[in-house]
């Protein structure tokens, strides 16, 4: 399968990429890992006249810690995050990166491309929305930062202008006593999940001080399950409390029946994933090491 013919441009710097896109106009698009865009081009769902390749820009792939936050260059591949010891400081990030698609897709796909794509079934947005995440952008009039919750506008829609780039993703390291988990259920490795859940909890002894719960693939964007959060906050995390929260998450989910499962099946998945993610988050908040990534069928 061949995409429509297009002109290829290789940007040497982020600034050049932005100005190229501005000059080339509406018919131009950025190309990052290509793991969302190239399949769309091959199916001719997208037919840009120009592609501006970001892959040859030096210094856009990095993971570093600075002022209590982890910083990821936009072109950092999922696999680089999966294998990074530093990224494990926030276990949700490793959970997320290690479970996206398969080895080959993770070797190419980027965190910046994932956020820019805003696929409602994508993993990064859902995992990062429970954390304090800031998206760094660069446009023709300069740089700006946007909170992730304001960055994602709708399915496949972000706050980015046409010629604006994601340059960096900044994730604040949660405080001591905080633990998180990200779980997604997939039918096989190289497919998007049927449902996913991200949980971040802060404990004081046995009592849950703060909770963030997000659901993926069951709405047009990641859904914050606020009532589920309320069910946990201020309570000790007994099985009963956890079950109440999971039921509240079921009610918050708004899934569609499709090839990944019926709406009812996905609601059921949400209940199971939220329960399990809370249990892992609690153990991690207490300092336990728990391996837990996406689950395959």
């Amino acid at each position, binding site marked *: 399968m061949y995409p429509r013919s297009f002109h290829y441009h290789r940007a040497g710097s982020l600034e050049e990429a932005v100005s190229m896109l501005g000059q080339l106009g509406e018919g131009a698009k950025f190309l990052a890992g290509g793991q969302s865009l190239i399949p769309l081009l091959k199916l001719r769902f997208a037919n840009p006249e120009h592609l501006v390749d970001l892959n040859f820009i030096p210094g856009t792939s990095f993971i570093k810690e600075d002022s209590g936050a982890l910083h990821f260059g936009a072109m950092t591949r999922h696999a680089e995050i999966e294998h990074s010891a530093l990224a494990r400081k926030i276990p949700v990030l490793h959970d997320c990166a290690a479970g996206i698609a*398969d080895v080959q897709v993770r070797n190419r796909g980027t965190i910046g491309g994932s956020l820019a794509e805003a696929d409602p079934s994508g993993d990064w947005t859902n995992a990062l929305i429970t954390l304090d995440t800031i998206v760094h952008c660069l446009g023709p009039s300069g740089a700006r930062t946007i909170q992730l919750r304001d960055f994602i506008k709708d399915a496949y829609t972000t706050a980015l202008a046409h010629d604006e780039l994601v340059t960096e993703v900044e994730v604040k390291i949660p405080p001591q006593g905080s633990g998180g988990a990200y779980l997604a259920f997939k039918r096989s490795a190289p497919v998007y999940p049927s449902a996913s859940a991200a949980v971040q909890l802060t404990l004081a002894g046995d009592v849950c001080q703060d909770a963030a719960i997000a659901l993926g693939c069951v709405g047009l964007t990641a859904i914050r399950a606020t009532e589920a959060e309320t069910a946990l906050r201020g309570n000790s995390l007994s099985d009963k409390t956890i079950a109440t929260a999971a039921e509240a998450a079921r009610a918050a989910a708004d899934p569609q029946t499709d090839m990944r499962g019926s709406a009812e099946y996905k609601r059921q998945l949400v209940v199971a994933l939220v329960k399990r993610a809370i249990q892992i988050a609690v153990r991690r908040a207490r300092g336990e090491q728990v391996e837990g990534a996406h689950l395959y069928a």
Partner: protein
Amino acid sequence: MPETATVEKIAVKININVNGKLYARQVEPRMLLVEFLREACDLTGTHVGCDTTYCGACTVLMNGLAVKSCTMFAVQADGSEITTVEGLEKDGKLHPIQKAFGDSYGLQCGYCTPGLMLSTHQLLSGNPEPSEKEIRKAIAGNTCRCTGYMNIFKAIELAGRNMKGA
């Protein structure tokens, strides 16, 4: 197809090192890496199965990392080193991975095998003694319609042992 004049205007000159040999070619930007390998380099060992980034039959190594060559443009591999199944054999001797797939009956029709061997290559380069779980994760992006995978797991374990001993 665009007019020939347009194709020439948008064509890009690239240099890709495939299996240790430099291929300098003028290509249309939309040419996929797998088509470049099969048609411009005449290396037909890399297969196209699904053409939709699912099956992994088109897997090659780019600078040592497994990628699906149906989901990359050849222009993006400019300046890089690509290894295809044809590059595994050295001086007429099969690579330990190739030998192990044969010895363990890790293939039947063989359509998936080039891709599987290159995913195996990335795995074993960093980890010659993978657990079954690690093997499963490493080849989760490669579909085999024939074997049921059990002999493939055996082949990968055997290849790891042989490579470590070598």
